[in-house]
């Protein structure tokens, strides 16, 4: 039996005349933490949204556990989402709900867990991500950026998903808080035995959480390998990106 959890083949997506994904091929193995790096606007978020069915690709195939997910019905998509968790770049916490209600959302609405039980479960998950129980009754707007990321992470892992997506998990955080979030991501992913797909342009974060790294450029995966391989590669695009140099084949449009 294949150990591929997510298999993406020739994935294409354009918005009007702007081609964002131009034939992405990518395999993610079960239990692996894959980090996709690439500059801003290279289509990293679009890739994640296509996998989740939030955006419909123009062409190509995405298979999860061998099952095609492109073009499935809403009901099939909902069933597929119950296997997934996602930490959004800005947290995307529901501001009309308290912190614990955010964390327990999937447990209450989908797993139909009674509210009392769900609150206990939410407090436990909050503790796992380093938040005290008294945070549970606060509103998301009362939290700092770092705390919101932790709550977002707690929400992503509360339903014990098989696949977790991380969209720029450390963007907007100070270096120490970024490292804390990276550690929490590693703990959560390894603890659950989940498959993780992270998109980021924070190389420190990528180095820390990745089993494997892939680079997206002009809508294609132009390189992939381990962190060690990345440090040794002579691929000019990867070298320029990881060193943050303005000189090289990647031209920044200003």
């Amino acid at each position: 039996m294949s150990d591929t959890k997510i298999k993406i083949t020739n994935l294409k997506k354009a918005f009007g005349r702007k081609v964002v994904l131009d034939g992405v091929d990518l395999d993610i193995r079960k239990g692996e933490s894959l980090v996709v790096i690439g500059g801003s606007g290279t289509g990293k978020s679009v890739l994640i949204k296509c996998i989740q069915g939030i955006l419909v690709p123009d062409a190509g195939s995405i298979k999860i556990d061998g099952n095609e997910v492109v073009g499935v019905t809403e009901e099939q998509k909902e069933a597929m989402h119950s296997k997934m968790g996602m930490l959004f770049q800005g947290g995307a916490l529901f501001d009309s709900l308290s912190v614990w209600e955010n964390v327990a959302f999937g447990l209450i609405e989908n797993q139909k867990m009674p509210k009392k039980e769900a609150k206990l479960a939410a407090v436990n998950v909050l503790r796992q991500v380093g938040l005290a129980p008294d945070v549970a009754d606060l509103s998301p707007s009362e939290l700092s950026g770092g705390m919101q990321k932790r709550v977002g992470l707690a929400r992503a892992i509360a339903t014990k998903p098989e696949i977790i997506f991380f969209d720029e998990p450390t963007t907007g955080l100070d270096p120490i808080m970024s490292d804390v979030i990276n550690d929490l991501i590693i703990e959560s992913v390894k603890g659950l035995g989940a498959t993780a797909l992270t998109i980021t342009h924070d190389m420190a974060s990528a180095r820390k959480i990745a089993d494997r790294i892939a680079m997206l450029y002009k809508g294609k995966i132009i390189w992939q390998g381990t962190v060690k391989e990345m440090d040794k590669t002579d691929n000019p695009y990867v070298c320029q990106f990881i060193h943050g140099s303005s000189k090289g084949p990647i031209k920044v449009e200003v």
Partner: protein
Amino acid sequence: MAKKYIENFLRKQGKPLVTFISRLGELSLFIAKSLYNCVTPPFYLRLLGKQMIDIGFYSLPVVGLTTIFAGMVIALQSYSGFARFGAESAVASVVLISVTRELAPVLSALMVAGRIGAAMAAEIGTMRVTEQIDALTTLSTNPFKYLVAPRIIAGILVLPLLVLFGDVIGIFGGYVIGVYKLGFNPANYINSTLQELQAIDITTGVVKACVFGFIISLMGCYNGYKSKGGAQGVGEATTNAVVSASILILIFNYIITEVFFSK
């Protein structure tokens, strides 16, 4: 040269038409999807209850104030107009018909469109631009069932109740002016109001209210759901929700009146 000029001209003229048709198609799909999700489970009854309170209970002061003054104005205007023909006694019936058939439904709907349509568009629009709607999807929750359906059902159910409340308050406004300013006998005023009261007057208002409730919620949800960008996008969505709902309310007011009363 001439061919290029014609091409450019047609492109410029055609673009708004294509945009309009594409928006119309988008709206039609949104309506179909919303209605489908209104009648298929799961139903979020807690959210429906919350929306009914937001739309109904918290709109009572606005609807009450609007309709009481409308009733008072109609009493004053009809008295001064009918005095020319010696038909002052018709004031009670004019107030009754004007309030129940037109003023309570239309003014209540316009006020609710300003209060609730804008709030819906702003809330859903903010959820859209902060990825909260995407988050709902990733949590296996259909945003149409969770956000749109409770608002649309609440709009359809609650607006008729608001209009019935507005009917009573508006007629009471006419009574206050009729009795305390124009010197009508209170018992006679109430009698002539009750004698003139017909089921069709109330029915028209209630039917209009159902349609207006649907329009207000639909425009609020649609504009919020489709909003793009940041604060500016949400601002535009809010404005569009109120303007489009208000215009549609006036158009459908005419259409429903035509259906009920044209001979």
